């Protein structure tokens, strides 16, 4: 059964306008559905401004949605209160992008890690030191660092402390919002290995938010590609990287610079794939930029940048429907 289920979730932020003008809405998340199963890694991938971090904040109940539901263990999280809310907070934890900003500089490692244990009354006071030591060992840190402060650590070590803090309450799912993008390559690999080990040992599910396709490919079970608040393609990781179907997914994969030794290699020539040829489908030399989420293009949100757009793309919004064993929102694959 799905651990976390998101149903037609929307979050629109009001944009302040000058007096007398009508209010505008920034559609950060515009009707998305997905579910995360136990012990699985679900990845939301997309460029900045596509709404992936807003989804993370909604799922954690840090903000309330405009409409739609988030079900955790079958219960709507926005209907929770009191003890049930506390239990939810215990089951869902987060690791942020910037380990320099997400640790309190005035708290020692021990204070930071023991705080969730105290709040949720998991460990008795006299066992607190041992519990902390256990957690630190789990994330590959020495137990002698308990009385030190965050500034004494490097980025990778701090991210380990953040992970230890998230693990303290034995969560069922960890939401990780770009946990690797602030780290150097060699440190990234260390943290990926750590997360991979934790998955094996603890059966934790991950909602992983990322823009780095290399990591996504390596680490995930299912991937959803987001663009301007919508999911454009939702597929098993192997399928998506073996044969990306949505033109935006192809653009993303072909834009990522790669060293030859890497596993996936969608070449830029993917754009000249015969099967996808439609009139005027030559790759535009300049694909332009992501439009503002306040003025989302009509029809398919990707159509102004799409090398394969044709007749209906600027008028009819494509639905996210099944095609070739995955969900895809594109008129090429789902004739309207």
């Amino acid at each position, binding site marked *: 059964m799905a651990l976390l289920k998101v149903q037609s979730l929307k979050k629109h932020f009001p944009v302040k306008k000058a007096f007398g003008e009508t209010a505008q809405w920034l559609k950060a998340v515009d009707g998305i559905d997905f579910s995360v199963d136990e012990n699985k890694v679900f990845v939301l991938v997309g460029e900045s401004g596509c709404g992936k971090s807003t989804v993370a904040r909604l799922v954690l109940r840090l903000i309330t949605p405009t409409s739609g539901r988030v079900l955790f263990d079958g219960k709507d999280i926005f209907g929770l209160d009191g003890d049930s809310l506390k239990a939810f907070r215990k089951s869902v934890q987060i690791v942020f992008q910037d380990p320099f900003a997400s640790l309190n500089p005035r708290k020692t490692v021990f204070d930071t890690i023991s705080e969730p244990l105290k709040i949720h009354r998991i460990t008795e006071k006299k066992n607190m030191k041992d519990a902390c030591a256990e957690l630190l060992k789990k994330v590959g840190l020495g137990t002698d660092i308990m009385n030190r402060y965050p500034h004494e650590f490097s980025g*990778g070590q701090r991210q380990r402390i953040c992970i230890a803090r998230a693990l303290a309450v034995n969560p069922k799912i960890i939401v990780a919002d770009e946990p690797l993008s602030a780290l150097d*390559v060699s440190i990234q*690999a260390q943290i990926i*290995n750590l997360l991979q080990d934790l998955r094996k040992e603890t059966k934790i599910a991950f909602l992983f938010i990322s823009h780095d396709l290399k990591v996504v*490919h390596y680490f995930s079970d299912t991937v959803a590609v987001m663009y301007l608040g919508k999911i454009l393609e939702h597929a098993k990781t*192997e399928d998506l990287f073996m044969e990306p179907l949505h033109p935006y997914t192809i653009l993303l994969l*072909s*834009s990522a*610079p790669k060293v030859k030794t*890497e596993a996936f290699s969608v070449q830029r020539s993917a754009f000249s794939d015969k099967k996808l040829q439609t009139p005027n489908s030559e790759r535009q030399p300049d694909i332009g930029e992501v439009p503002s989420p306040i003025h989302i293009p009509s029809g398919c949100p990707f159509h102004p940048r799409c090398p394969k757009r044709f007749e209906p793309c600027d008028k009819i919004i494509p639905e996210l429907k099944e095609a070739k064993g995955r969900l895809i929102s594109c008129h090429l694959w789902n004739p309207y």
Partner: protein
Amino acid sequence: MSLLEIRDLNVSFRTKASPTKVVSNLSLDIKESEVFGLVGESGCGKSLTALSIMGILPPNAYAEGLINFNGKDLLMLDRESLRRLRGREIAMIFQEPMTSLNPVLTIGYQISEVMTTHLGLSKKDAFDRAVDLLRDVKIPSPEIRVKEYPHQMSGGMRQRVMIAMAVACNPSLLIADEPTTALDVTIQSQILELLQKLREERKMSILLITHDLGIIAENAKKAAIMYAGRIVELAEAGELFNNPGHPYTMGLLDSLPKEKGKPLKPIPGTVPRPDKLPQGCKFSDRCRFVVPPCRTEEPELKEVDGRHPVRCIRAAEIKWPY
């Protein structure tokens, strides 16, 4: 002929105790209209190398050695001649375009300022040229954009403006310090394509500084890998990735996620602080091939068996993939 020749460059910070060396005996050559990549993790000294070429090191740092650019030793030039050189013959773009543009001046003003200063153009001519430059860097409707302010543009657009400003006086060397790190991948590939196009049209050399090996593999002709202020390997880009010679380069390549499910082989430990470098080879405390002599004497950067230069005493024995 080399356009830029760096020999035994040392960059140090003055501290209360003894000076801390952050770039040590660095030598490299950049040829005309070539892309030279400088790769390394944060704190390895790659940006400080760039800053010393431009002569804009922070006040508590100083550079020694020889930086020969077109027959001039940049470290010996006085402030006035350096000022005339910067922006005209050597230009630089930075990682975060928002902080490098002035928020209260229009981009047209900022681009034309370079040309009124260095080329002696009139304000009007310079402004017209600015429009052309914006068109060259593929900014749509440049006539309108030229009157706008930086906050009205996206990150990718701002980086294009920075590039327009940098190439305004046809420099022969462009230093690009992590030019795409703050940008999304689709924008990143556009910016890199643009830089390549400008390089070909204008016969400009580019010193491309990045931590992303993929960017180097796709864009640079030659590249140097830096670790703890030293070049540890220097080779043609293809050679570097197919036939790496230094354990650190191999470690970086191993750290990239490859086959799904297989555990990665990260480099253990962290980059040492510049004032607490190990004795001998600076990578010895993290190296999987370390032998006792590594810890006593620092190896030189030299060619082994006719291969490209590698700073490792075991370069001849260690074969990739091991």
